[in-house]
């Protein structure tokens, strides 16, 4: 847990969030009092760094596990697979299954050259 990349909003200084998030899941941020941010200037470098961290987290927590999912229908808990199912719609029915599921690729016709014979 300690070596895993953290979301950008996690400061790493609060030890009271142990067990808040499950493995691979982000924890819940503690909400500050209204008006707390008023005095804090926007740090664009920090935000960019945070965005980079979020990308890293998404890659490791979402995309890496999904890379092993061959059939989206078998992984409804995976966000990417669910997205593919929603967007792909009817493409997941057996009619569009791969050759391993019984479909045969069309064999192109090999046309035979025909010449005029002696009687042609």
């Amino acid at each position: 847990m300690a070596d895993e990349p953290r979301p950008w909003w996690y400061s790493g200084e609060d030890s009271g969030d142990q067990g808040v998030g499950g493995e691979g899941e982000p924890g819940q941020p503690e909400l500050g009092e209204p008006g707390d941010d008023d005095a804090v200037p926007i740090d664009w470098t920090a935000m960019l760094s945070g965005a980079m961290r979020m990308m890293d987290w998404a890659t490791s927590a979402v995309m890496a596990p999904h890379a092993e999912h061959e059939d989206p229908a078998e992984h409804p808990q995976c966000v990417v697979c669910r997205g593919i199912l929603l967007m792909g719609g009817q493409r997941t029915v057996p009619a569009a299954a791969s050759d391993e599921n019984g479909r045969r690729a069309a064999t192109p016709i090999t046309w035979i050259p025909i010449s005029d014979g002696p009687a042609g």
Partner: protein
Amino acid sequence: MSRLILLAGADTTSVGTLAAATVTALADEGFTAALVNGSEASPADPATTDLLVNSIGRVFAALGADSLPPEAWAAVPGLGHLSALLLVDELAQDSDVVVVDAGSLAQAQQLVELPAVLERLLDAALSPSLAMWRTSEGEDVAFDALAEARRTVSRLGRLLLRRDTTIRLVVPPTAAGAEAMEQGLSAFSTLGVGVEGVILHRYPRKGESWPADVRHAARRALATVREAAGAVAVWKSSAEGRPAPKGRSAAGPFGHVQVLDHEDLGVRIDDESLALDLPLAPLARRTARVGVTGEQLVVAVGAVHRWIELPAVLRRCRPLAGVRTADGVRLEFEPDPGLWMGGGEQHG
């Protein structure tokens, strides 16, 4: 087993006249004869529409398509032809002869080709995937219905390819008529339906006052048709319609019927190669393209395609070349070492 006679020609009105005259003549001869309108104009009957709704329609529904009223399916091209063929199949049980007004040459080609086309499409659809496919309620999507449709179209195809099934071409006694006759002879013999007769309809009679140039054109067309027809019977018909040559029964058959019959294809073995002779009509001989796909031979003449199972010995051979002969096309094959040694399944 009943005779099946199709009539087709350049002018659909003349075809209708000759088809009616043929049925009348057959009845006069004591035959039980039935007439079927097999032209494109014939509407699909409800039973044929149901066949489509319960097969293809169920696949569409399983894919999430909205329901359509049966009338929408009835307008699908080719359904009228399928309906006519199903009627022919039914009437053939109780009739000596079934006469089909097949309309124009193009319509008749579509009618004759339809069972084979549907057979190929249904063969492709009847995959293991479809067999395993279930609706959310666990029901079979359409496999059984499509398999039943496959059996039906296969029966219709066999009906058309019987030796008792022949076609008579109705053409005007003009240069265009002679050309249409040659195209029809080429297309139908390639599709496996023998042309047994050519009727030159509205041929000028001696007592009639036709202009001299019309008479000359008719005589030239008659000579051209006779030459191109070979052993196929050719006869002249007046406007009233003569369904058979003089002194012959309207039931026929007349003349020599040559077709591309897959059961008659023999393989000759010459040294290292094997030869397959395809009998083709003169025009098809000059214009046909021949190819191989998988274990099938494809003969294409114009828009017509005939698919024939390759003789078993040629399924592990590769085609080399073809040569036009006096009777058709001779194809040469050689054993494919890759397929013989490796047990492959497809031709290159």
